[in-house]
């Protein structure tokens, strides 16, 4: 079963609604916006895994919105919806690592589904890696603090049978 929250941003409400319908069928939570500024505000309170934004919107382009979202939440996966004429923008952004992928309008539902499967997988692993790094660092500082109190404690020597070898310090 798929899970996760996807933010949908397009100034045309029917596009947001069509995406919502497709993605809900796949079991995702969706939140939709027709205004990029409102979407940015909502990011502060909503736990979002993936953002799909249209490129052509009044006030702020999709890429401008996604770059701002990236500054606030670098681990959110970003997907741009484009027409054929805006493909260059998307390609440059992918090359620079600012965008995960683009989907062209009108989108193919199967491609949307596969893109989201991969995007969610990426998101899950990125979040997990961050946690693992934290755990490793925590453990290292714990070992270091013990080592400061009891020098040599983290480097116990053992012989072939597993018995601890005690060495005199002199």
């Amino acid at each position, binding site marked *: 079963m798929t899970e996760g929250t996807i933010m949908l941003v397009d100034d045309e409400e029917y596009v947001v609604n069509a995406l919502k319908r497709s993605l809900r069928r796949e079991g995702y939570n969706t939140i939709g916006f027709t205004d990029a500024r409102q979407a940015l505000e909502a990011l502060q309170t909503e736990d979002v895994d993936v953002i799909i934004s249209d490129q052509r919107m009044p006030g702020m382009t999709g890429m401008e919105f996604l770059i701002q979202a990236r500054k606030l939440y670098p681990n959110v996966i970003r997907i741009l919806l484009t027409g054929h004429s805006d493909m260059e923008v998307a*390609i440059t952004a*992918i*090359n620079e690592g600012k965008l*995960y*992928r683009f989907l062209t309008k009108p989108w*193919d539902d*199967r491609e949307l*589904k*596969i893109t989201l*499967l*991969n995007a969610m*997988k*990426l998101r899950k*692993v*990125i979040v*997990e*890696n961050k946690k*693992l*790094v934290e*755990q*490793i660092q925590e*453990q*290292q500082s714990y*070992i270091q603090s013990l080592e400061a109190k009891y020098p040599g*404690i*983290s*480097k*116990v020597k*053992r012989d072939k049978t597993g018995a*601890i070898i005690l060495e005199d310090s002199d």
Partner: protein
Amino acid sequence: MKKRPTVLILDDDELVIQSLGKALQNLGYGVILCLNPREALDRIENSEVDLVVSDLRMPAMNGIEFLEKIQAKCPNAARVLMIGPEDREIAAAAISREAADWFLGKPWEEEVIRLTLLMILRLQRIVCENRELQSRLREQEAGQENAFIT
């Protein structure tokens, strides 16, 4: 800097493996070209392959079956199914049950291939990082236990 990624390409059509191979070489990838699944499975044993691209419809074994074997043999390699326009539904179903990571439509555009591979390899790099971090944590935990058992 890591060595350039290697892609294994399997298709029973020699023209396809030649032209896709050339396209990927142009993009800076190392390539291994194979015409039959048995040969591909043998060759993957002895080489470090980052990504496998397989045709769906082949006489000896279908591409999904082949990619499943690849996963068992070489779990770190990313898997792409190459399909004609009529097989999108089959590809989507295979990807949903994680028998493949992505699909590539025939005929392809070089830019589509470039972006698709870039995206897949990014995910793969992060998955590999995940495995490394997990084993580092396990080692560290084992080291700690080892030190404190008396």
